[in-house]
């Protein structure tokens, strides 16, 4: 079966690896939150302090610093990744 895992590693000072912590990652690890859903990530972009993932269904996810609004989050309410999949299912 084809793997849909997304692997990340490197600097994690701003949490842009999306692993739920801020520790640098010296070896590639699969992103757990992607693994637990069936989402297929088709596009990715890395900024200085943030990351963007886009699924095949054109769902837009971001992680990392939002100090300049680069995550595209306009309000205080940020929807956690896991909840989004629930929204998607429901």
């Amino acid at each position: 079966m084809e793997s849909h895992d997304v692997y990340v590693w490197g600097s994690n000072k701003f949490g842009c690896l999306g692993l739920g912590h801020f520790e640098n990652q010296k070896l590639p690890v699969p992103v757990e939150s992607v693994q637990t859903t069936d989402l297929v990530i088709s596009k990715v972009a890395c900024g200085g302090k943030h990351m963007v993932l886009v699924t095949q269904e054109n769902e837009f996810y971001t992680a990392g610093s939002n100090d300049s609004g680069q995550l595209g989050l306009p309000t205080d309410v940020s929807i956690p990744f896991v909840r989004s999949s629930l929204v998607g299912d429901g």
Partner: protein
Amino acid sequence: MQEIQNVPVFVDEISGQQINQVACGADHTVVLSQGTVISFGSNSVGQLGVVAGTNDFGLLHKIPLLVNITKIATGANHTLCTSSEGQVFSWGDNSKGQLGLGSKDSTCSTPTLLSGMHSKNIACGAEHSMVICEKGHLYAFGDNSLGQLGIGLTEPFVSCPMMSNIVDYQTSSIHSIWCGSFHSLVQVLAYKEKESFFEKQYFAFGDNKHGQLGLGDCENRKLAEKVCFLESCDVLDVSLGYNTSYVWINNRGLYACGLNDSGQLGTKDPVLSNSVFEKVQGIPMTMKGVVTASSFVVVIPQTEPINIPQIPYNFEKLKPKITLQSCVQVEHASALQKDEKLKPKQIAQACVLVEHPSSLLKDMGELLESGIFCDVILKGNKSISVESKATRPKEFPVHSAILSCRAPLIHQIVHQEMGKFKDTSRMLSLSKHSGWKLKNRAVSIDLQVSQLALEIIVQFVYTDDIESAIAKLTPEQLLDLSWGAKSYGIERLLALCQRRTLSVLDVSNAVLVYGRATQLGLFATKRICLEFIFENYQAAVSTRNRPAVDTLHDMPALLAEIVGVSSPDFAKNLINSLPTSLEVQPSSLVRDLARMRSEAGAYLNVDLMPFNSQCQETVGVPCHAFILASRCPVIRQAFESYFGNISTVHKRKPEKEDQTNSHSADSENNSISELCKSTEESGLQELLLQGTTLLVNRIVTGTLDGRLKLREISEASLKSIHVFLNYLYCDATSDITADVAIDLLMMAHVYGMTNCSLCSYCETILVDNLAPESAVDIICASKVLGLTALENRAIEYFASHFHECLQHKEILIDALEDFPDLGMKLLGCMDELTFQHLKN
């Protein structure tokens, strides 16, 4: 709101619409969605491409006007995008010129089109940008402090897109580009003739402090260097991050090199950096992925085919030949490495051509003032009122040639007067033996006008510029001038006078002017007065109006008419019986002077001969001595040294009665032949260096059949001489070729006319028509003449059309022989080796 999200969060606002590409800068995000561009994040230097306030934090901006965008690329704080038509737009930070706009503005918050680009692909480093254009040519701009543009220069940054000569574009093309923070990697398709296939090659350049170029060392590269590791590898994907490089090799997995301070290389050994590609651990061998990196790395499964065009760009020539071009190209690259003579920014300065205004009117005015080579003296012997009877009548030296085309009726009188002499050529011919003395030669004509009117008429004939002169005239003087203009058939002057009369009329003088106009037979003026009197009848014809009463007393015949005007019907009939005043036509000075050159055959007294013709045999281009003398300072000097004083006599008396030189008639021919000889020996360049004194002595070569022979000393072609004369006569500049323009510039400089409008015109022509075959000639000519702006423009052209220009190597070789230092100046395109190569 949470400043930092350490798990991916769903962004509702943008989700759901089709997302074609995402790119991130240091603090901003750009999304490509169905041909339009959406941006959000920091806008500190305009990187969002919209004018947004600080309160817009977190808002998504759809950038207006951008449509049909196919690819986006982000640097740290700038963005490039390209449209389906190959246009390139850029916006954001421009502190290093990374927008390619050529401007010094440090930011640009609206997408700006890069002109002249037809892009196939784009990429951005932190502060540099790259564009692959049609035919696989690579253009680079922005930060180059670490050599990341690969153009070989040490310029810290480049703000205009510069074509990079990494490869020989005759046989290779740039296929793909990737930019890291301060380094770059290109994929080249090189045509292998023997095997008839395209070989993929990888070249890296720029920052290599941490070994991120994968070349096995940590030295920065200003010129592209082949990455041997990637040779014969089947590279699926590449990403360059912050001081790191990642390549995905088919069947082997992901390899990385560069900085490892955060473990971003994903390798087993905890090294701080690695200058050779090493395999990233922990990714399943079966995975075919896409890699994206900054200071961290994300690998996602490959869900769609990697969009790399598989068909190579069309090469102009598939079968490469060893040409001068390709040799020079390689040497060009090495020359650039050695020294950096190419400084486009410096060249761009001082490229502004100076516009000189036309000097025709000024020259004509001076010609009249100085009376050079006059053959007619006009005198006004008619006095109105008590105007200066005591003083001797003023004389106006003029030229019959000019009269013939500008004032035909006066010319007729002159012609009749001249006919009284048996030998008419006496007045016209110029000969050294008799010298040139106005008193002896000119025919004197008395005209029935006042001196003041004559002065204005003459001024009008020469310059057409009399508005200020007639503005000062009294109504009486104006009438006199009108009469003069009418009697000698100068219609435009008459019309101007009539227009002016209307504005000097008032109730006190209307009847007086009416009376004088009747006496002089100026019917149109009379009509103007009559209309005025009709409208202001009470005031103009009142018994308390002394001047009116006096006039009517002197001219009783008018009384009936004036009284009759009180009846509207009578007035209407009377007014309608008079002719209307003339309309003021546009000045015909230029046209008339042009006609003088072609029609006034009788007065032509100079033959201007091309430099190479034998002075006594060939017939040159006929023209008028006074035109040459008035417009070319050097030729005037030549006349003066030949004839002595050629100027007017009525202002200052000739200091010496006889200015003939020590030359006797016999020795004249000898000296001419000597002059001819010496002129042939020395080139033009030396002539220019030797100054005008020597030039002056070489121009006049003698007389033949009463005509003066002049030698054209700048070696211009016959056609150029004709165009030059057209300019001298009437400022006419027709469509000219680059060759002629160079000739004309030479002539203008040789004859001391450096600030004439002809020069400006020629320079403009040359700049507009720069072509590979003429560029070098123009550089040489402008060098000789000291025209820095033109020279810089030509050099600039040469630099940007280097290869085309080199195809005309004979011209270049000739030029290099004349100007050995030119080779060095040509931008360092030309090092000594190449010079020798060319010479051989």
